[in-house]
């Protein structure tokens, strides 16, 4: 074991297996630098043990119990729907969704105030196609409607002839 390998293990010495601890101990016997690190880790451990004896407590324990009991809903049972919606109660998710919504609205507004898209690589103006307008389907509409008119007219002529 070298110093780099020992570095992390020194700080988590008590979380290692016995075999791993032995390896660290062997390295410590021959390395002054790592022995110093082990000493620092021990000092921190001693401070934590001292600090642990002071325990944070609520100001008024009974008041906290009462407050929690008042906050419990009367008859609320978890359903699949409430469990699914529970995910959205997470503040980080709510903030992400808010940001995404603002971004989408901004893109929509920006797009709507832009001029219609033009094909800029057309060779001449007459080859330019303006999108976002119905001009380009007029020809198609005419083709579609004209034969229908002829058909109706021919049918009218036919009926007229028959009646004469």
């Amino acid at each position, binding site marked *: 074991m070298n110093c780099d390998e020992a570095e992390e293990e020194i*700080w988590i010495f008590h979380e290692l297996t016995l075999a791993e601890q032995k390896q660290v101990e062997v390295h410590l016997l021959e390395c002054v630098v790592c022995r110093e690190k082990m000493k620092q880790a021990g000092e921190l451990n001693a401070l934590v043990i001292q600090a642990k004896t*002071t325990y944070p407590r609520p100001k008024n324990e009974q008041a906290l119990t009462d407050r929690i009991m008042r906050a419990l*809903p009367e008859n609320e049972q978890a359903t699949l729907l409430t*469990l699914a919606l529970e995910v959205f109660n997470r503040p*980080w998710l709510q903030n992400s969704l808010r940001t995404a919504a603002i971004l989408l609205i901004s893109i929509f507004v920006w797009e709507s105030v832009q001029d219609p898209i033009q094909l800029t690589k057309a060779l001449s103006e007459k080859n330019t196609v303006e999108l976002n307008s119905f001009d380009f389907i007029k020809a198609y509409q005419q083709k579609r409607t004209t034969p229908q008119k002829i058909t109706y007219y021919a049918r009218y002529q036919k009926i007229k002839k028959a009646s004469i």
Partner: protein
Amino acid sequence: MAGDRQAFSQLVHSNQGYLYAIAYRYLSNEDEAEDAVQEAFVKLWKNFSNYREEVKLTTWLYRILVNHCLDIKKSSARRFQNHRLSIEEAANFSTGSTPHLEMEKKEIACLLQQAVDELSGKQKMVFVLRDMEGLEVGEVCNLMELSEEQMKSNLYHARKKVQDWMKKNYEQD
């Protein structure tokens, strides 16, 4: 239903202190710690019908609290400024020894709390659960849903940062 509430009240009473200690050590704020404890119990109450007996009830409760605390930290709305404990807040640490020793211990506890405040979310929670609350490695992994390797890596970085902070600030004072 009334019986359920009474039993639940007992559960709240016997576990709120431990939950509060975790929440306070993680959030460094009394009001937020109380809110977090309340939120954990309300979530437990609402989802009681989904309780599986193979998981210890208290484990489930602590996991709710840990997730809630980590979520608060993730929220960008919360300003995690370097919180400095006031004398009044320090007074809420209970020790139970002579006044002089008590003062010294409170001072160390306050300094350590400030050092812990400098840690990032998971490192802070691992340090609080393992070092401050004395949970076993397996319990910490279970509560935080981390592998042993991830837990050890977070613990290593946390301890090293806390030691550096303490060295810089404690020895100067």
